[in-house]
């Protein structure tokens, strides 16, 4: 396994507040809703982490804070030793709705981050083609997003995130919009790509199976207020690449434990 003891992402008492809907009566000072309350965790270099929890637990908020798309209100997040204040170029995001630019071909979409970096056309073409090959879309490089299936569009999203050879990949329920077969195929393919890339991955999901299948550790979040409930080591992490881990004896136990944990959340 590529994970080492070196810390990649550190959360120190991270809190995030959102303004509440307007309340009647002006006597009270307006209050802020606590979306995330004092989250502490350390993610090691090369780890695959899933953020698991019911909707409203702040898992996406935590991801967006880590990506620098939202500002932390209390505490701090450091990536490779530096506090996060804005999106970092070595940390790339894969979006739930794929987030492709519809007027660009697959190739031009995958090139996008390198274009932002001001890399010359020939070089970024070559890099983009390499990653398009890697996600298995070689024949579709000149196609437009609307000509592709959802699964293929997300492959483009993954290729785009890889072009910068990032230290860190953020994934916000990337396979949530796909049908079951496509999702399984993409999970499998992404695991293979991830093992080769050595990147650290933070992956939001609400599927227990997906969390157990993909990650080294599962961060279980709870609602009301959003907070870290437990950090669970996946017993299957080392075997996930060979064969069907759903048949693994520990899979069922672990799954039941997680389900129990999510359920006792008072929801």
């Amino acid at each position, binding site marked *: 396994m590529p994970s080492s003891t070196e810390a990649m992402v550190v959360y120190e008492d991270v809190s995030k507040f959102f303004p509440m809907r307007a309340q009647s009566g002006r006597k009270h000072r307006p209050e802020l809703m606590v979306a995330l309350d004092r989250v502490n965790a350390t993610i090691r270099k090369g780890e695959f982490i899933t953020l698991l929890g019911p909707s409203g637990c702040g898992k996406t908020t935590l991801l967006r804070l880590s990506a620098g798309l939202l500002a932390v209100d209390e505490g701090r997040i450091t990536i490779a030793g530096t506090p996060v204040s804005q999106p970092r170029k070595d940390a790339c995001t894969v*979006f739930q709705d794929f987030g492709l630019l519809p007027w660009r071909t697959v190739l031009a979409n995958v090139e996008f981050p390198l274009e932002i970096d001001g890399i010359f056309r020939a070089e970024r073409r070559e890099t983009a083609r390499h990653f398009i090959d890697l996600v298995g879309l070689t024949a579709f490089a000149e196609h437009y997003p609307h000509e592709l299936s959802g699964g293929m569009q997300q492959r483009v999203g993954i290729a785009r995130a890889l072009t910068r050879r990032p230290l860190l990949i953020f994934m916000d329920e990337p396979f949530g919009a796909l049908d079951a077969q496509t999702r399984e195929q993409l999970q499998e393919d992404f695991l293979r790509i991830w093992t080769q890339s050595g990147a650290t991955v933070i992956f939001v999901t609400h599927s227990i199976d997906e969390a157990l299948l993909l990650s080294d550790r599962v961060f279980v979040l709870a609602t009301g207020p959003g907070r870290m409930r437990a950090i669970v080591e996946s017993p299957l992490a080392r075997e996930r690449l060979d064969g069907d881990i759903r048949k693994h004896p520990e899979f069922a136990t672990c799954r039941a434990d997680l389900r129990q944990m999510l359920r006792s959340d008072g929801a």
Partner: protein
Amino acid sequence: MSSTGTTEPRKSVPAPKPNFAARMRQVAFSPNVIRTIAVATFFAIWEFYGRRMDPIFMAPPSAIFDAALQLIQSGALRKALIESLWPFAAGMTLTVILGIAIGVAIAQWRLVEYICDPFINALYAIPRIALVPLIILWVGLEFTGKVAILVSVAVFPIIVNTYAGIRDVRGSMLEIGRAYGATDAQIFFKIILPAAIPFIMAGVRLSVGLAIIGIIVAEFFTAISGLGGMIVEYANVFATAKLFVPIIVIALVGVVLTEIVMWAERRLSRWRTLERERL
């Protein structure tokens, strides 16, 4: 397995051949055949009755054709066409640049929007034709006057559509740029502007139609040059056959220009139409 294994699954089957009568019906009722017949009938009726009417009020197509040949040979038509098209080209260029610039400015900066809003709304409410005498008073009758009138008439759809197009860009699309560390300028040129292009092109198409009206109205007032001037001149002397020539030329120019813009619009907005068809 329940398949028999002896027959291959069929990927396609031959379509039945239409019979002769059905094919003839298809040709006879094709839109272009019907259109051609309708137009030919229209001209035949016009020619027939046109010959019987007082030439002061009406001219048959044959007389108009003769008048057109005459105007082409004398060079009068060519001269008028250039006098109209040159300010048209200049005015249209200015309209597109100005329209997009204003649209972008009010869509991107709230301050600019709040400052410009009342003026744009007021100008939009006034029929711009009402401003024509004033514009002539300020900038004169010739080239500058025509350009100014054209811009005042044609610029609004581009402003409005550019604004709407930019405001329509979804937050999730801007987030792609932010997440990948794009600068504000990169987000504007690589995401906002391309996303707004289909709207802007629709504005340009509307604007071209208004610009043709603008230039002709300007020439009516000045009545000395261009195709509009030609119309007024021949109407004043009851040269009805000649009067039809600039009208037909304007119609042709209008059709050609609209086709060009629509072609460009289709090319630039292809992704959007295809994306929508998918949904």
